């Protein structure tokens, strides 16, 4: 399954890069979302995937080997939230940009003063 998931990560990256290279700003934002998803997956995969063994502990069970690694999960969780923050801000920026310039095309952005 690792191979398939890696391929998915790669595809997400490819889609992200392709969208980021588009002139439409909406697509650009979706590209960012794809790339941040891909990166999250990459970090998640790098710890090794363990099905059905979430990192829950009680006082008795202490064998870390059997459980999924909690550390990358904590990292990715932070990344998801931060990524969300970035996307929201970009969307707002995009909205404002469209209101001011009435265009969705990056190449129309030739002036600093609108």
């Amino acid at each position, binding site marked *: *399954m690792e*191979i398939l998931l*890696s391929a*998915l990560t*790669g*595809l*997400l*990256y*490819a*889609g992200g*890069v*392709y*969208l*980021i*290279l*588009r*002139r*439409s700003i*909406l*697509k650009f934002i*979706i590209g960012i*979302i*794809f790339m941040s*998803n*891909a990166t999250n*997956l*990459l970090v*998640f995969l*790098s*710890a*090794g*995937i*363990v*099905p*059905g063994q*979430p*990192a*829950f502990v*009680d*006082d008795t069970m202490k064998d*870390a080997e059997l*459980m999924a*690694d*909690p550390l990358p*999960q*904590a990292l*990715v*969780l*932070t990344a*998801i*939230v931060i990524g969300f923050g*970035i996307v*929201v801000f970009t*969307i*707002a920026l*995009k*909205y*404002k940009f469209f209101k001011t310039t009435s265009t969705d095309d*990056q*190449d129309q952005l030739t002036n600093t003063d609108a």
Partner: protein
Amino acid sequence: MFIILILYLVLAFALFLIPTKLSKFNSLLIALFHLCLFTFFMTHLPDVTAGKSIDISYQWIPQLGLNLVLKLDGLSIVFVLLITFIGFLVFIYANTYMKSYTGTTKFFFYLTLFSGAMLGLVLSADFIQLFMFWELTSVLSFLLISYFNENEQARKAAFQSLFVTGFGGLCLFVAIILIGSIVDSYSLTDWMEKAHIIKEDSRYLPALILVLIGIFTKSAQFPFHFWLLGAMQAPTPVSAFLHSATMVKAGIFLLARLYPVLGGTPEWTQIVPLFGALTMLTGSYLAITQIDIKLILAYTTISALGVLVLLLGMDTKQSVKAAMVFLFVHAFYKSALFMLAGFITKQTGTRSVDKIGGLIQSSPMSFVIAMIALFSMAGLPPMLGFIGKELIYEAKFDSPWLSTVLLIIGVTSNIFMVTIAFLFLFEVFLGKAKGGTKKPPGLYKYLLISPGILALLSLGFGLFPDLLTQLVGPALNIIRSDDVQIKLKLWHGLNQVFFLSVFTVIAGISLFIIIYRHQQIIKVWQRVNNRLFSINFTKVFSTGLDKFIAFSRKNTHLIQHGYNRYYIITIIAFTSILLVFQLYFTRGWEIESAFTLQPFYISGLVFIIMLSVLMSVLSKNSLFTIVAMAVTGYGISLIYLYYSAVDLAITQIIIETLMVVMFVLLLRRLPKFVKLSSRNTKIRDALIALGFGLIMTVLALKAIHVDFNPSISDYFVQNSALKAYGKNVVNVILVDFRALDTLGEITVLSIAALGVFTLLNVKKTKK
């Protein structure tokens, strides 16, 4: 002595605090300060003459071997006395001269700082420190040349001088570091002790060449001489102080300072005199045909600097002695002449020789001063210039290398000097008065005080040369580091040097008579010169600079084109290449995981996500794109869920939902997708994207076998329930073990929210 340098700084800034009413005495105050310094250093003269040197050092950054070291020895005291004395006269002069201009406080501020920097330069016995003062003088020279900054020519000339001397300064800096790396020290004493090591090192030649570039740019040697001509745009006190007596002599000082360290080698005795002789001849030859009185003086200054460099390069006792004497000769007559030129300009309102004449009628005093100074320049007895010239001839006779050639060049150059001196005297002071020169000098007569004193010195030292022996002797001992007995006298007896002098004077005067009788000759000569020396260095410099700037602009446009996607392409392509190398060299290509589709519901899910990614990328309808994006996000959250990341799954679902809602809200207000890119662009982007995706796939596969440091995870797992009383380890990490990171995350979100709020609100207020 440190206190003196600090006093300069304090005094310079204090100028701004002096009330406007008293500010007209600014200049006299600084003049007084210079006089005090002069007296102070004079009291040290007997000690220094006795061969002692006063060293003061202060640890600055001892870890880097950087110290502040001041050294008052035979060589530096010569320069110190010159700077303080001429400084004293220049400030008196400037008091009257600058009266008619505004912003004089700034002017005196710069000039005071310059004087301090120059003093620091000649007192430095540590080369890093010397370099700093060296650069400071360049910068202050720039500021002073551009003092009339509303004049475009002045700005250009100032920039040009800064560029040339700054370039030289950088060369010097590299040279200092090179030599510093040979002896592992920047102190003068160490350099002198290990001079033989330096001379044998392979880095000697490059260091020497770089040092010489620094010196030649500062002292306006050919082919760097042109900046000094531009520098004539500065107010006359600046020309008299910086560009004849002090700053241009900084190069000479360094040449003399480094003589014991770098001098005496065949390279030295070949390169240095060559440039000196060339400069000497070019300067004096081109001076004859000039019309602008300040330019005449600038060219003769260049010639004189050439003489000094030549003498120091010749490497004989005689030549060094001649150089030291000539240093005084030149400082006395040239500063006097510059100040006189300022006086003439004030009096007549022009700098052109053609429009000036008969000044003797309105100001006989200036005629007398000019005569003494010009005779000193021409090397006529009984002026100090005569002694200087005799010594120079003597040195050239004794020169071991190319003495005939040097002698011919030297005599030619001196003949020109004699001609120029007489031309100047006759054209400006005698002959018919041209234009409004009849009126008496009035207030401007005060301008004659300083040049008068200097002219008297030229005469006085000429009649009683023994006084100079005291000063020159110790300097010689420092430079040559052996005992040189010197005796200066006016009358040398009837020897070959004397005959050569007589010949020079006769030839010079005959040349003058020919030119003066037939004024058209000089016009023809000017034309011939313009034809022959059609290379205008200033023009070459400015066009070269323009081309260079245009070239950089073109390059910058190539790289900084302003297209976001090309930047991204560059970043992605570069990252891909780096990743390929990294993966190939450190990990190899073998894939260790086995391919499997089990469990099938997950592989099915993965295929659905892949399809939706493709859908999102390729769809022409923005709603489809967003829906497909949402499917991708939810799919990923299911993958998290299956592979034991419950918290991730929950977060991903919440955030995906929020994002979809926002996109859909936004979508109503946005236009439909339009086709913006051509087919070719799309194919190119697709190739780049797929290449990057492929590399990232491989990276992901490799990453599975990279182990995070397990002890961290183990620690969290083992202590989560025990210490933090939480059963969900991921949650405990976020809110307990790494709570501060989460605080940071919340801060980021708040700032993003604030940003969004502001962005959306601005619109409302505008409407």
